[in-house]
């Protein structure tokens, strides 16, 4: 009932706003009304199409809208199911799937349709359509492109993970931020000052935090070799525990378990700005030669980077929090931008799963790059067929 009220209201308004010649003449009816199941749905909708009335936009130009009517009997009473504005030639009669719903449209039951061309005060009705029933589909045909994408990506990932597990070396290009690590630690040793490593505000299960642990392991190994102290103030107690474990293992690997100092990896507080205040205090007291900010960072990024910059430390940063990267780029010496942080950890960690999926992502990007080149050419020379391959129809 409500739907009908709205339909009527719409028609009323359309008649008000659309600039038409207010003739009382009946328009010619729409023709070739066809009904069929709406594709790619759960089976409670029928699509109606028709050929526009000759008076729609041409002829007498008095058609303002189409009303779509439905009945389960070609001779029976038809009820209005919806309205389409003039110029439209398709309507999806969407029903509800629950039997209790007033708008219920049962599947596998025949329905007939009529379309009315509405003029100002009169209308003209089409012939009754063919019978059609709604049914659910087992596969959404519009999503084939997506399915291909899903399969390709999964195949890439599994293939490369397998390759990495077999011990094949997968190449990851060197990153400036990681190349600079050795130099930065060397400088700290020369100056006899500590290194400050901040894992960020993320919890231990975030990808950025995990990536940071991998890089920490590498950094800690170097500091063990050079005998330079490394300070790690933490925001989260679980992160602290993992960091301690990581550093201890790295010192052991470097053959210096005796110089590992657990008290250098400590919990500060888990309140954002109180944490910042704590870390700033450490920077100003200890004057570390190098600061690492790798992990998940939020608004505190620029406060940390600023203090470090003023204290004259070399700073290496990296996060996947897009809004914070600009501040890191402007205020630190090296920045791992978003994905580079993951790449760095895959590169340093040599974990087959991470390396394999990183490779899959690379191949995904390669596919996009190739599509862009071919697509741009096809679009410039108007190869419609080729363009349709890239179209995602949902």
């Amino acid at each position, binding site marked *: 009932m409500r739907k009908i009220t709205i339909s009527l209201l719409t028609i009323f308004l359309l008649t008000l706003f659309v600039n038409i010649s207010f003739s009382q003449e009946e328009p010619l009816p729409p023709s070739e009304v066809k009904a069929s199941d709406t594709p790619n749905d759960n089976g409670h909708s029928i699509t109606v199409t028709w050929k526009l009335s000759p008076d729609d936009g041409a002829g007498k130009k008095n058609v303002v809208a189409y009303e779509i009517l439905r009945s389960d009997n070609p001779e029976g009473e038809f009820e209005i199911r919806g309205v389409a504005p003039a110029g439209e030639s398709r309507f999806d009669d969407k029903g509800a799937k629950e039997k209790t719903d007033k708008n219920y449209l049962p599947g596998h039951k025949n329905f007939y349709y009529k379309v009315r061309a509405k003029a100002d005060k009169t209308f003209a009705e089409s012939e009754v359509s063919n019978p059609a029933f709604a049914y659910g589909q087992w596969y959404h045909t519009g999503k084939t492109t997506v399915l291909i994408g899903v399969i390709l990506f999964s195949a890439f990932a599994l293939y490369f993970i397998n390759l990495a597990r077999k011990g094949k070396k997968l190449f990851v290009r060197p990153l400036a931020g990681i190349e600079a690590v050795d130099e930065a630690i060397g400088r700290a040793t020369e100056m006899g000052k500590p290194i400050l490593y901040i894992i960020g505000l993320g919890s231990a299960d975030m990808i950025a935090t995990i990536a940071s642990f991998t890089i920490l392991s590498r950094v800690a190994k170097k500091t063990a070799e050079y005998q330079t102290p490394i300070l790690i103030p933490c925001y989260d107690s679980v992160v602290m525990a993992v960091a301690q474990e990581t550093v201890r293992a790295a010192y052991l690997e470097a053959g210096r378990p005796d110089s590992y100092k657990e008290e250098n990896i400590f919990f500060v507080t888990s309140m954002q700005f109180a944490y910042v205040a704590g870390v700033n205090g450490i920077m100003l007291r200890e004057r570390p030669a190098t600061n690492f900010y790798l992990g998940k960072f939020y608004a505190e990024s620029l406060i940390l980077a600023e203090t470090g910059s003023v204290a004259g430390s070399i700073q290496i940063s990296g996060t996947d929090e897009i809004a914070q990267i600009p501040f890191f780029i402007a205020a630190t010496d090296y920045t791992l931008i978003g994905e580079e942080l993951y790449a760095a950890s895959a590169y340093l960690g040599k974990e087959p799963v991470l390396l394999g999926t990183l490779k899959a992502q690379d191949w995904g990007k390669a596919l996009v790059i190739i599509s862009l080149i071919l697509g741009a050419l096809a679009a410039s020379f108007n190869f419609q067929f080729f363009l349709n391959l890239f179209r995602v129809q*949902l």
Partner: protein
Amino acid sequence: MSFLEKLLAIDRRIIFLFIAIAAALPLFFTVKLHIEVTPIVNNVYNALEALPPGSKVLLSMDYDPGSMPELQPMAESFLRYCFLRDLKVIIIGLWPNGPIQANIALEEVFKDEEVKNRNPQYGIDYVNLGYTVGNEVVVERMGSDIPATFPKDYTGNKTEDLPLMKGVKNYNNIDFVYNLSAGYPGTYEWVIFAVDPYKIKLAAGNTAVQAPLVYPYVQSGQLIGVLGGMKGGAEFEIATGKPAKAVKYMFSQSVTHAVICFFILIGNFAYFATRKKKGS
């Protein structure tokens, strides 16, 4: 220590004081500024204008008081616009603060004389379905069943019993979605979980931090337009012909931007000048 070095080594509390004055002083003056409505905001306004009266609009309030100066004026201007145009508003929140922020905005909007004359009624002209936990999954679930996602409104009335919600089953029955977003969950989630799978029409107001991130969606047509930060809010107020809070702040906003640019320039100048001296 040269003058430039001294300039660089200035205590930051002095800078704090400086920016506080730069921001506060202009607040005391009322200056009429030229504000151009940019195309991306105009898109939003035109899309709203095209809606016939009686259309059902979903307003998703996805922010907290932390971004209130940017998004609250947008909420108010949007609600005022809807009431005057007789668009029916369904309010939800993906952030727990959303529904209460909506109530605060409504209180403000009802002070407007024109809105008072229209006398919008709860349940008929607008409803507030409250908050539900689940972020993007909420957006996804609403695609199949809105009353199941929000069984009760924020005061405990059954959603299906509200006159405005009669016949609203899922996105098919919603004519337009307007999202005010300060981060996650927000515009990203609305595009990914509602626009692409369910074909809704979406426009958004974003905090300035987030606005640039959604520009690709505007180019691709997944998002009709976006109001970026307080300036976007001001443009929308101008477009609707009702300058309000966001417009009021524009003078201060301008001054602070100029000050920041000045800081960047002078800071870099002093830095490179002193470095050159040291180098030689």
